[in-house]
């Protein structure tokens, strides 16, 4: 079953080229639509995005204060527009289409999702939030930048982030995000139509993220929920740069929105303008807070994936300007203490790839010189990947430390390679009657391999308790020791025969007659095959390769 693959960490599918990931993602759209189109989002906390629910708390506060001031549709629309206005005051550059911010229109149609994610990231949109903001305030379109936005330098990426943020807010309140309806409503509105069309993937990720992050939301403060949302989103935004940008933007939006009521926007904007693509170094701290709220394995995974996503993105553009970034990291040293701020600046700007570089922020109390920063980045990347490998290799959960982990990985790879060798040996000795049912085999394998494989495994296991099937069920250290102490003696075939005869099974019917053929076959094997088999047979009581049984079977079928 690909179930085991689905439980794997969500590696960036594009980076690792795993077809397994797209399969997993294929199933999410259904869940996603359910998740996002729930009209009673207040009640369906389990399904809604934690981001949205966090936003709702923010939305409600400005809505309460400005209920009467903003003309327009329903209360939800007022909240949204107020928020957008505040957002607009932050980001005064770039285009965000107005299409997604319909107030009072509950068009819970499928276009909601797609419109939110339909911005092509290649176009650096000019944010006209300033106009929108002013429109909110007084329905007066103001061309160009609002005077109050003067201190904030334009950040096109932030426009997209704000767009995404507003999109989430709209989704939360089940506002109809209909592209067709918006133009007449808010001309200069945020242009979320420009959001990337990696919609399905992203929606999926949000859905999965929402599933994970819901609990935190319930328990933790909005701030932490924002963190959780950020983490989830960052975790989900691994696979591709545009998607990363989107989610990073939204994360920005969330953290920004939190500070909007507080009025501490300047800090945010400064960091915004300085950082196109950042590795959130203080993520380490966020990780801790994160794990505190919900001690689940998924949290660490989210944090991992967050790192992973950053690692991936930074990897793409590392050469471009790592030195520059670490220098920048120097100039912004100790803001790492602010968990909110640093959180997820990992937005790569697809519109300006040559300028992309990694912003590495020095952690609090750590060295800020470029060398150590770069080294830390590298170490973090390696440890992320080691964690993923830990999930993949069976029996490595208790192992700590990279060296031991690498040992286990090496053993596992070697055992897999040997298994392949033994299986190919087995297949090479099989009778040619396979020709008759090859087509049946072909179709049967493809269709049933997942489901039937466990069944084929178990009978062998039950029948041969002294020969556990395959490496996966064995103790790793014992295997390692067997490799290290490989003996070159003539392997005790007779003892093997006896062991096999002790456990007759339907799987090995011709066992009884194979003892005679064994010696001459063994003499003619390749040297290294022999050594491997000897190693296996040397430990045949405690653990066995699948290959040892296969070898026995092969001799049988001669």
């Amino acid at each position, binding site marked *: 079953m690909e179930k085991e693959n689905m439980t794997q960490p969500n590696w960036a599918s594009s980076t690792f080229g795993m077809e397994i990931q797209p399969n997993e993602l294929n199933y999410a759209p259904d869940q996603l639509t359910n998740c996002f189109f729930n009209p009673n989002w207040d009640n369906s906390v389990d399904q809604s995005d934690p981001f949205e629910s966090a936003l709702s708390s923010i939305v409600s506060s400005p809505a309460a204060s400005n209920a009467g001031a903003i003309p327009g549709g329903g209360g939800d629309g007022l909240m949204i527009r107020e928020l957008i206005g505040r957002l607009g005051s932050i980001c005064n550059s770039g285009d965000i289409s107005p299409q997604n911010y319909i107030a009072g229109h509950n068009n819970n149609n499928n276009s909601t999702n797609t419109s939110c994610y339909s911005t092509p990231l290649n176009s650096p949109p000019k944010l006209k939030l300033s106009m929108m903001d002013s429109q909110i305030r007084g329905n007066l379109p103001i061309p160009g930048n609002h005077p109050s936005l003067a201190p904030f330098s334009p950040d096109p990426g932030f426009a997209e982030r704000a767009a995404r943020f507003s999109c989430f807010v709209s989704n939360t309140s089940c506002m109809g995000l209909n592209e067709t309806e918006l133009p007449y409503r808010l001309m200069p509105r945020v242009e979320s139509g420009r959001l990337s069309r990696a919609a399905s993937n992203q929606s999926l990720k949000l859905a999965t993220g929402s599933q994970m992050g819901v609990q935190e939301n319930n328990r933790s403060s909005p701030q932490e929920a924002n963190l959780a949302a950020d983490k989830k989103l960052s975790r989900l935004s691994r696979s591709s740069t545009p998607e990363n940008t989107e989610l990073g933007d939204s994360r920005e939006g969330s953290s920004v929105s939190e500070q909007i009521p507080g009025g501490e926007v300047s800090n945010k904007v400064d960091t915004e303008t300085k950082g196109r693509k950042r590795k959130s170094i203080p993520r380490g701290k966020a990780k801790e807070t994160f794990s505190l709220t919900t001690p689940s394995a998924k949290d660490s995974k989210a944090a991992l994936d967050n790192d992973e996503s950053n690692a991936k993105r930074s990897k793409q553009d590392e050469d471009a300007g790592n030195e520059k970034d670490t220098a920048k990291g120097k100039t912004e040293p100790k803001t790492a203490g602010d968990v909110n701020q640093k959180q997820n600046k990992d937005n790569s700007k697809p519109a300006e790839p040559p300028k992309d570089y990694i912003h590495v922020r020095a952690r609090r109390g750590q060295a800020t010189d470029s060398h150590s920063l770069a080294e830390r980045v590298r170490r973090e990347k390696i440890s992320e990947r080691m964690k993923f490998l830990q999930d993949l290799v069976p029996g490595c959960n208790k192992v700590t430390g990279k060296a031991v982990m690498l040992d286990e990985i090496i053993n596992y*790879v070697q055992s897999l390679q040997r298994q392949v060798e033994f299986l190919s040996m087995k297949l090479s000795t099989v009778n040619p009657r396979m020709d008759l049912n090859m087509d049946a085999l072909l179709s049967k394998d493809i269709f049933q391999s997942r489901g039937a494989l466990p069944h084929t495994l178990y009978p062998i296991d039950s029948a041969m308790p002294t020969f556990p099937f395959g490496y996966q069920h064995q103790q790793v250290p014992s295997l390692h020791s067997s490799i290290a102490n490989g003996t070159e003696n003539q392997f005790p075939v007779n003892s093997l025969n006896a062991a096999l005869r002790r456990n007759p099974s339907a799987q090995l019917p011709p066992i009884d007659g194979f003892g005679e053929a064994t010696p001459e076959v063994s003499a003619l094997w390749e040297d*290294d095959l022999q*050594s491997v088999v000897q190693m296996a047979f040397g430990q045949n009581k405690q653990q066995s390769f699948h290959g040892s049984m296969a070898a026995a079977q092969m001799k049988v079928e001669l």
Partner: protein
Amino acid sequence: MNSKRFSPTSSTIKSRFTRRFLRALLKINRQRTRTPSSPMEICQRYLKVKLAADVSMASAVGSRRAWSRAMLAKIRHGVRTGSMCSLTMMRKRKIYHRKKSTKEVGIVGNAKVLRKLVPGGEAMDTCSLLDETFHYIKCLSTQVKVMTRIADQICST
């Protein structure tokens, strides 16, 4: 869900590998002589089957990953230099096993060993080496599962 996954049109690594490998197996079996095979023939057939498994796995992955590219390049090089190359390779691997007992400790030492294991691992930095290892392990386990299934089906019928 199962039907969707395993439909003939879906092309996962697993299905692609299965198809190619079975085709190769058929081809190899057609070359079998009717007379009982000598052990040397069996050995050669074994090598062919192993090669077929590697080739079908690497080609199922395609050029997306460095290890599959390296494996395909190695195989093509091996084909060009003749089949004797595989025997020398196996002897080299035996020597490699002996060397491993000298215990290279630490992450760097293990990384070196890993580089030799993973095809194409020599020319990678540690970070991408771990990436490739991850994908390689996944594909290897897929390979093992498929081959086990094939073997069981063949032996049981």
